[in-house]
């Protein structure tokens, strides 16, 4: 599952990710997140830590790509 939030800036990637998680509550999360907002490099891991999700940075150039999984 891939969520493409390229082109969006703070706070929209976090809000859209939150919405996705709320809509899929109770299910196992395994998503690739694609972003262009550089602030996301710090914000997505911070959000995931607080939400209890594993977050791995797959690449940061040319686009930012995270894998996010349930713990």
């Amino acid at each position, binding site marked *: 599952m891939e969520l493409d939030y390229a*082109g*969006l*800036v*703070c*706070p*929209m990637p*976090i*809000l859209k*990710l*939150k919405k996705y998680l709320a809509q899929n509550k109770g299910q196992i999360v395994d998503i690739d997140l694609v972003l*262009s*907002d550089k602030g996301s490099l710090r914000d997505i891991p911070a*959000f995931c830590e*607080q*939400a209890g999700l594993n977050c791995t940075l797959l690449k940061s150039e040319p686009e930012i790509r995270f894998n996010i999984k349930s713990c």
Partner: protein
Amino acid sequence: MNSDTVSSGKLSVIHTKGTLDWAYPTFILASTAAAMDKEVELFFTFYGLKAVLKSTDTLKVSPLGNPGMVLHSPVGPNWFKELDLNSVLPGLVWTLPGMSLLATWGFKQTLLQQGQVPVGELRDLCIELGVKMTVCQMTMDMMGYKEEDFIEGVEFAGAATYFANTPKSQSLYV
């Protein structure tokens, strides 16, 4: 900030500014905090009331008396778009008729080109995420606004209610 305020997971923002630029930080912080499961309370007072009027059209921005503002043209050749018009043009320019409308238009276009959403959309997201909003009753009466001028879901109360509701909140003043 002490450990008590962090663990309680509550944020309150006192919003006092009536311009478009300052509506963004408040709604960005509020929506993000709510997405991170904090209870969020926004208290709108004085000019800040404009941020919760039904129409966001009265939210404007002007470089006049606003030296910190960076204003780029959203149109034109690249060398022109890179200029900070607030630094290169004399301040007198912004007193001309129509300039605040032009600056507001340019500011909105720049935000949209960057990937930011219109302020009304961000505000709707705050409500969707459960952010509680309170309008200062005294200011509303003083400025001649009516309850029906404001968006659905806001409450009307005074400073005592704000303090009663937010003793354990991390509080910001915008």
